[in-house]
């Protein structure tokens, strides 16, 4: 028998009961899929997304300053392309040496399709459509250039390259908020995807060192440090995020001398950071617990100081084990940014709620919320995929294979 048929039979029709269940499920799935397709193509009116695409992307960011965001996007695209190319141009044992592995071609193909289809579907002006195409071309070009000539770069250059990312972050903050000769744009005008990504990336970057320190504190031999960490972690983990955001909005002003409290958006971003740090600390702690005690003792007996032992021996092993849990926390942090809409900030969900309050779009909430769901799903699923790939790359077995075959 055909192996596919055999597989199908053992998977779906092993027993009569199984067969009946399968048939029922197939009918259900078909009905749902057909219904959804019919709705999406015939009944749904996507004009609500088309008319508000700028609002969803950047909120009320002033129109004459939006070139700064385009510039930032172009910078990010170029750096992403170069990083991607550099990662591929050095052959490794866990990968075939080709410059364009199948997954890369798949990703680029998907990107091209999205870039060609999406701006048209959103009915953007031709000028914006051209920008999208240019961005895609920039990504492909920088990816190709870095892949082609990356191997000619010297080793110190390659080592310094990751520092470009924090630099881009700083440049991005200046471009977004103004200053240094640029017209300032106050945080109350940021919104949509821009605000979501900004708060999420800010919290992810800052909660990482805090989480590691808290986890170390919780496992420390010093009672005071341990107790401070335990109390902090358990307090934060015991309270719902929304009550902490409430604390940030309503009580932080009382705790600081008058006029010192930062803007509402930064307050919320800091609350998110402090919140995520407690959860991240627990993820890191599980990683620390997995490192055998002998590692610490061996490193110390070799004469490494305590900080050296932590940074060079214990943390690399602990963080590798904690990686899936940590990325899980980052994913839920990205999802938690939607709670900012409950305290009146206009991130993606907040924009959606204001758009739905407009009577012109009454009855089309399904289109908006399903689009947002798709957007969040893609971002979170991509993070999850990246985490699994990184986990495989950092697996000790893969690493030992790649070092034994230089």
């Amino acid at each position, binding site marked *: 028998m055909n192996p596919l048929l055999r597989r199908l039979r053992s998977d779906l029709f092993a027993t009569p009961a199984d067969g009946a269940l*399968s048939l029922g499920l197939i009918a259900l799935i078909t009905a749902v899929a057909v219904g959804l397709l019919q709705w999406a193509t015939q009944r749904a009116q996507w004009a609500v997304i088309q008319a508000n695409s700028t609002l969803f992307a950047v909120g009320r960011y002033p129109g004459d300053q939006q070139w700064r965001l385009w510039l930032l996007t172009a910078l990010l695209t170029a750096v992403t392309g170069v990083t991607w190319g550099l990662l591929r141009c050095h052959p490794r044992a866990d990968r075939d040496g080709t410059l364009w592995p199948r997954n890369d071609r798949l990703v680029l193909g998907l990107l091209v399709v999205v870039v060609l289809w999406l701006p048209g579907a959103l009915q953007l002006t031709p000028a914006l459509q051209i920008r999208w195409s240019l961005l895609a071309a920039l990504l492909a070009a920088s990816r190709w250039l870095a892949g082609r000539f990356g191997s000619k770069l010297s080793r110190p250059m390659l080592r310094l390259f990751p520092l470009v990312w924090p630099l881009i972050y700083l440049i991005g903050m200046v471009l977004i908020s103004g200053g240094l000769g640029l017209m300032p744009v106050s945080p109350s005008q940021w919104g949509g995807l821009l605000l979501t990504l900004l708060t999420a990336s800010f919290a992810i970057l800052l909660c990482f060192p805090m989480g590691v320190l808290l986890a170390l504190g919780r496992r420390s031999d010093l009672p005071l440090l341990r107790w401070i960490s335990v109390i902090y972690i358990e307090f934060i983990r*015991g309270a*719902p*995020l929304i009550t902490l955001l409430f604390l940030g909005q*309503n009580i932080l002003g009382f705790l600081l001398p008058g006029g010192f409290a930062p803007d509402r958006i930064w307050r919320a971003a800091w609350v998110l950071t402090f919140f995520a740090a407690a959860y991240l600390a627990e993820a890191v702690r599980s990683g620390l617990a997995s490192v055998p005690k002998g590692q610490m003792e061996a490193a110390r007996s070799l004469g490494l100081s305590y900080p050296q032992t932590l940074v060079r021996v214990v943390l690399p092993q602990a963080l590798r084990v904690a990686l899936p849990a940590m990325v899980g926390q980052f994913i839920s942090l990205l999802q938690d940014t939607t*709670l900012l809409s409950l305290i009146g900030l206009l991130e993606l969900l907040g924009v959606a709620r204001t758009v739905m309050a407009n009577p012109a779009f009454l009855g089309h909430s399904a289109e908006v919320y399903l689009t947002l769901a798709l957007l*969040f799903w893609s971002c979170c699923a991509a993070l999850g995929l990246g985490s699994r790939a990184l986990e495989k790359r950092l697996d000790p077995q893969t690493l030992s294979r790649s070092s034994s075959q230089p």
Partner: protein
Amino acid sequence: MRDPQALLDPLDRPPWWRDRRVIPWLGQGVVALLLLVLIAFLLGNLVHNLTTRGMLLSWRWLGQPAGFDISETLVPFSAEMPYWRGLVAGLANTLRAVLTGLVGATLLGTLAGMASFSRNGLLRGLTRTYVETIRNIPLLLQLIFWYFVVFLSLPNGTAALQIPGVVLAKSGLYLAGFGQGMHWSLPQLVNGVWQAPLRLSVEFAALISGLIIYSGAFIAEVVRGGIASVPKGQWEAATSLGMGWFATLRHVVLPQALRVIVPGLNTQYISLAKNSSLAVAVGFTDLYSVAETTLNQTGRALEVYLLLLGAYLAMDLVISLLMNGLNRFVQIRER
């Protein structure tokens, strides 16, 4: 100046700033001092700011009439009752949502977790899709979707969705039950309005559907992990003894898997209890929602916040204690 010879003496203690027994304590002392200064600074500001506004900690406002109504309550409440009654009514609503959510999510999660070990590939795939879809979409977005897109677009009157004993309409979810005079009665249409012994508001129905479906996906993962932790030989041994799929799961695998499942469930239950505070987005008046209204009316931010935090911490603690008790019960006692 110290005698250079003394440095070579192994029994001589180093000066205190290089003594390994002193440094850690010194470091802790510095941290404690910094922390105390920070706390004193924050508290000082708090007291100063509150005194200038004449809002220093006071609980007298709890006895004043609330002036707002709560649309559905378990404990009787009306606008002329004091604030504390309102907060109690809100807490009762939160507990109702959490308890319903816990039961529903456990059932759904266990079923989905068991289904991911089914022989049927389609069922496995469907479970996988369910878990991966739900976990990658924010809960708040899901709740808003259920409320605004699903429940608020339901038809009313005769067009409402009807299964024997259950009616789902825009005006609420109607369930059969024991009505007046303790006799069984079904939902029925009286003058175009549904009547039933048990009515749940759409807000509550949207909240618990969202919570159950979201937490169910996480619990399914916990259950799947627990079942996967049972060695394959246990399945094979039970099957070779002639036990069926369900009997194997029920009598052999689950009792062993529970040891791994219960601690994971504890985390999920606590996060469900905390997530119930998102009820405010779908218009269900839970504790957080009452607290927010109270704050807006009285301006008592600190007191309201302390009450809110205390209530949620207490809820987490109770769940943890119960689950730890359960954990002791399911642990395999070895000699």
